[in-house]
């Protein structure tokens, strides 16, 4: 087994008879973004809490850069919980500096770094405002800063985009990518599959306390691809369709003016060149691309299959 920067080994956690985590192992490469996926109640948050040493596993261990996690690692981890908030009656600047001090930063360094972040987000005027005066989105921004201020080597984001408008969600997304560029290892737990595809290098899918799928996003997509292609072309579509062999199956087609968009499924391992050749003979191909399943589809399929298996 390849040892990652974070190595979760055979974690078991039981709550009064039900297994929240059943022998879960994952490995997170240094400097990568790892997507932790799964339906609600799958055990993601439990796993994240175990990595954060908030909960202790019944068995198994977590290795942080090769060492079993201990209190010494706390300052090297940044955690943005799904259920998050701040002290409402406390001033923003004061509060973030306090939370950074809990992570082991000195007051002076924390203040300096925080000022830099406030300048970056252009929110300097918030420093002396009470948290309760900020909107939910503004508070989320502050919480994001709290998570990354102490420049941890490992960042764990649980639903980081919830509560953000698209513009701010994008800002956060860019920040996460920038952190990755700097070499930070990131674990991202989310239900937003679009962001998983955009950001994650590897994923693990957890369902009912078990890991049911893991690997590189690219590999997984290939594995679940169904040989479906989309062709955009002009010309005599009816003729194209009627002359197709039984190796092809048209799933759907749509005609807009002169241009037809058609989705086809290749039934067996036929080179895609043959398909293109068939179309170019009867018209003009404008676009051709493979339709890979979205992470969303894979998620729904795999979870659905597992549910059927367990019921059977």
């Amino acid at each position, binding site marked *: 087994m390849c040892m990652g920067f974070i190595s979760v080994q055979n974690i078991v956690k039981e709550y009064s008879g039900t297994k929240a985590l059943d022998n879960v192992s994952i490995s997170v490469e240094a400097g990568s973004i790892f997507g932790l996926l799964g339906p609600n109640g799958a055990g993601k948050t439990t796993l994240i809490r175990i990595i954060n040493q*908030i909960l202790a596993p*019944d068995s198994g261990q977590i290795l942080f850069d090769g060492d079993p996690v201990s209190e010494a690692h706390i300052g090297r981890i940044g955690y943005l919980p799904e*259920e998050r908030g*701040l002290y*409402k009656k406390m001033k923003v600047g004061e509060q973030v500096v306090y*939370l950074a001090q809990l992570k082991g930063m000195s007051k002076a360094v924390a203040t300096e770094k925080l000022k830099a972040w406030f300048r970056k987000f252009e929110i300097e005027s918030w420093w002396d405002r009470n948290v309760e005066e900020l909107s939910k989105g503004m508070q989320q921004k502050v919480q994001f800063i709290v998570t990354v201020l102490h420049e941890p080597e490992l960042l764990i984001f649980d639903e980081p985009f919830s509560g953000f408008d698209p513009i701010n969600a994008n800002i956060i997304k860019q920040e996460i990518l920038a952190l990755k560029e700097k070499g930070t290892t990131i674990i991202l737990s989310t239900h937003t599959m679009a962001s998983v595809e955009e950001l994650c290098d590897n994923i693990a899918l957890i369902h009912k306390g078990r890991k049911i799928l893991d690997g590189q996003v690219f590999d997984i997509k290939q594995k679940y691809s169904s040989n479906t292609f989309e062709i955009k072309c002009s010309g005599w579509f009816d003729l194209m369709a009627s002359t197709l062999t039984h190796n092809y199956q048209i799933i759907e087609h749509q005609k807009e003016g002169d241009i037809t968009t058609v989705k086809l499924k290749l039934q067996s391992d036929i080179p895609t060149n043959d398909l293109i050749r068939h179309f170019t003979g009867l018209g003009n191909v404008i676009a051709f691309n493979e339709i890979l399943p979205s992470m969303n589809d894979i998620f729904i399929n795999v979870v659905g299959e597992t549910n059927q298996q367990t019921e059977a």
Partner: protein
Amino acid sequence: MSIIGPLLIAAIFIVPLWLQKFESKQIKNIAVIDESGILVPTLKSTENVIFTDMGKMTLDEAQKEFSKSGYYAVLFIPKNILNSTAVQIFSNRQPDFGLKQYIAKLIEKDLETLKLLKSNVNPDLLKAVQTPIFVQTIKWTSDGREVEVTMEMKTIIGTVASMLIYIFIFLYGSQVMRGVVEEKVNRIVEIIISSIRPLQLMVGKITGIMLVGLTQFVLWICISFSVIWLAQVTLFPEPAVPTVTNPTATIDSKVMEQVQALGQDDYQYALDIFGSVSNVNWPIMIGSFVFFFICGYLLYAAMFAAVGSAVDSESDTQQFIMPITVPMVISLLMIQVILNNPDGSIAFWLSMIPFTSPIAMMARIPFGVPIWEVVLSSSILIASIIIMAKLAAKIYRTGILMYGKRITYRELVKWIRYR
């Protein structure tokens, strides 16, 4: 609140006294028309009430000139006063009740003396029969000394101390609970416990609020004492002059004060409280107050923290607060019983049960408690704190991350059993 609180306490002491003083400063001039002519010589003017003999003036003349004269009232004593029971006070306003009582008492006494003298009673004998009775309580200590016990003062101190400790424990204990609920409702708790252990957070919160409590207590003591002292110096500069000549001069002055305190009016009594404040063994009182506050607070704060962690909002705390408050309220209700018999078995057992001992002990301490009882009670209390803190920490650890679930007692027991 930390400043205003003690000022309020001091105000409770001072304002009534100050008002009384202010009230009594109004000098009342009373014109006396004594048709009998026998009472006027005996009516002695005092600081506040001045009697002026109007001589042969009639009531009609007095009425005509009254508004111009500046007198407060006219006291009319009829000719047949020795056989009658009525005198009259005339005024253009409602004469106050205190004055009426004062005059009635004065005339009653004078008439009594006059009547006795008329029946040829020896004036010396008359003086000798007026015997004020006082009860002196003396305690034999174990080393054979006789210690004078001023029960009244001790009762007052016991009551105040045990009430105060009840208020302090409840005030700061529930503050812990509110803090825990706030952190949970805010959802900041998970951010914090990713940096420090839940136990550290709980202990930190309890310790922090305890220090706030102690600071406030010290402030209360300092401000209350200095304000009361200041009031004593400025408002009542002279110690009260005894007005009753005590025939038994051998009795020491403390008892005298006591007798006066019981016999005289409230004003005198309040002055006496000022006097007695300095007779209390404050180091022992404050020392044990601080000790029992810290211990009682720690015991209850641990429970309050556990309750706070188990609920989702402050309004859900009711069902768990009940069992916490019951022993507190019981000990509060039992204060009177304890004070009536500070060495009785109820007092003893209440000061052994850790949930009631801080309050019970504070009620008993002014009366003196055997050392072994104090040691035993403190040991039980400290042991209970350790056990309670461990249980609370287990509930807290699980509770702060538990949302949206209605927690039952069975659930709490389950949490305690988690590894």
